[in-house]
């Protein structure tokens, strides 16, 4: 238990450093700071995402040079339903942080981060493919895992796990027969 306390402490320090750095650059950049299990999440307004990401990479105190992951969570039926998470790592500073943008279902659109990290290309294509979020300024926004003529966005919560079928699958029939 002692170890987890130390981890929580150091992450709080890191959260403070990142939030302060970003606030001193633009007070509007940090909408919220979330701490959970020693992980720091900085919620960023949608318009400022690309500028904030650039700042995270360029600032000498932060140096988040590696974008490890970008993914999305659909909180349907809550609104704003989409939560985009960008996981950044600073190789020189040995720190991690998560940037988050919340998007409503009606205009799920956000600036692409490809100009900041070219590695965001396929990560954003995957999110576009499976969640239907559009990235403005992306050089090649096509489906990547699914066929080009696929209908719908399967990782949305309102898309059934077994897909749309003409004939119910054995799983569905089982569930129907087992619900009273």
């Amino acid at each position, binding site marked *: 238990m002692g170890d987890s306390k130390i981890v929580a402490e150091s992450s709080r320090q890191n959260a403070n450093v990142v939030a302060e750095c970003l606030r001193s650059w633009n007070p509007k950049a940090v909408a919220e700071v979330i701490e959970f*299990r020693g992980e720091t*999440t900085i919620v960023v307004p949608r318009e400022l995402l690309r500028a904030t990401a650039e700042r995270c990479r360029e600032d000498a105190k932060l140096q988040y040079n590696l974008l490890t992951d970008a*993914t999305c969570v659909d909180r349907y039926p809550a609104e704003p339903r989409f939560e985009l998470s960008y996981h950044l790592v600073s190789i020189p500073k040995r720190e991690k942080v998560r940037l988050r943008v919340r998007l409503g279902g009606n205009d799920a659109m956000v600036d692409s981060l490809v100009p900041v990290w070219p590695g965001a*290309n396929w990560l954003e294509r995957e999110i576009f493919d499976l969640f239907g979020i559009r990235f403005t300024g992306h050089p090649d926004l096509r489906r990547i*895992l699914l066929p080009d003529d696929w209908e719908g966005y399967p990782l949305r919560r309102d898309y059934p796990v077994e897909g749309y079928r003409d004939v119910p699958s054995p799983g569905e029939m089982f569930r129907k027969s087992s619900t009273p």
Partner: protein
Amino acid sequence: MTTVDTVTGTAKTMVLNMGPQHPSTHGVLRILLELDGETVVKAVPDLGYLHTGIEKSCEDKTYSQVITLTDRIDYLNPLGNNLVYCLAVEKLLGLAVPKRAQYIRVMMVELQRISSHLVWLGTHAIDLGAMSVFLYCFREREEILNIFEMFSGQRMMTSYIRIGGLALDPPTGWRQAVERFLRMMPGHIDEYEELLTKNRIWIGRTKGIGYISPKDAVALSMTGPTLRAAGVAYDNRKVFPYSSYEEFNFSIPTRTESDCYARYLVRVAEMRESLKIVRQTLDKITNEGPIIAEAPGIIPPQREKMKTEMEALIYHFKIFTEGFSPPPGEAFVTVESPRGELGCFIASDGSSKPLRVHFRSPSYINLQALPKLIEGQLIADVVACIGTIDIILGEVDR
């Protein structure tokens, strides 16, 4: 299609379709190659042939049921996938794993790393025409799979690592089996190196091929041996230690040439480092001790207790019917898989099924750099470059 200048005047480029059924693509990867003679002008990878929607399937499974799916993501590193998923769930729950289980986990994933690198070395060598290395590598891999079978009853899809610890206690005679492997393996690695490291054909096919600058590699989010061969010593086991890796003494092999040959040398050196770690775990793993955390309602009770105590029986029933519910929140954990940084992101909404499980698969992201590696090179080098990234299509497409 574009036009290019040649010795005899301008000419049109040709588009060649490589794959999806091509032996060197290690699965079903399709690459559209635009060629000027034998030189690659442009390369566009096309994937998704093995997309099975594992992340979607996770939505309909309880937290413990997902473990069997993780085995199937990267089929050369099932234990690593189990580990990253379990670490993420344990982080969500705030669960501490007993030290003995952590050490056994380390031993298993390091053996897995060696076996994965062996498959890589064998198939990479066969792609470039060295048939015999393949046979040797698979001979030793079999020894590792036998150890896995001893521990878990399965050679490949082990599901041995569970939330909170391990599925089973190590079997009798496991120590002798691992020691025997540790005794013979260094000699076998020398054997592969004798066949390849100074082999003129091997050097000719790999040296100076597929260069990427360290700056580009980081910008393209590359990780693992490919990044370390470019001179960036980024390894999750050292930078963000998990599962008690900070207690082990090992080094991170790096090179600066950043070509296929450097990546080969890095991976071979990594196998030797993994052997060092396995040797250290043998001293740390005690013969007695818990292999799974004590957490009623989350970890299934022991069989003995289940038959004598009423509460244990109720917990057993509840865990296997409705599962357990972690608090709402997110956890992102990264580990070092044989291919690079393997991450698992779990979002929980407080119910017994995950809201979202996402795997940051290193193959998928490293493959993104393929066009950068092969543009301007010859067709024959495309095969070397695909091999050197060490992609597993099951993990790329998930």
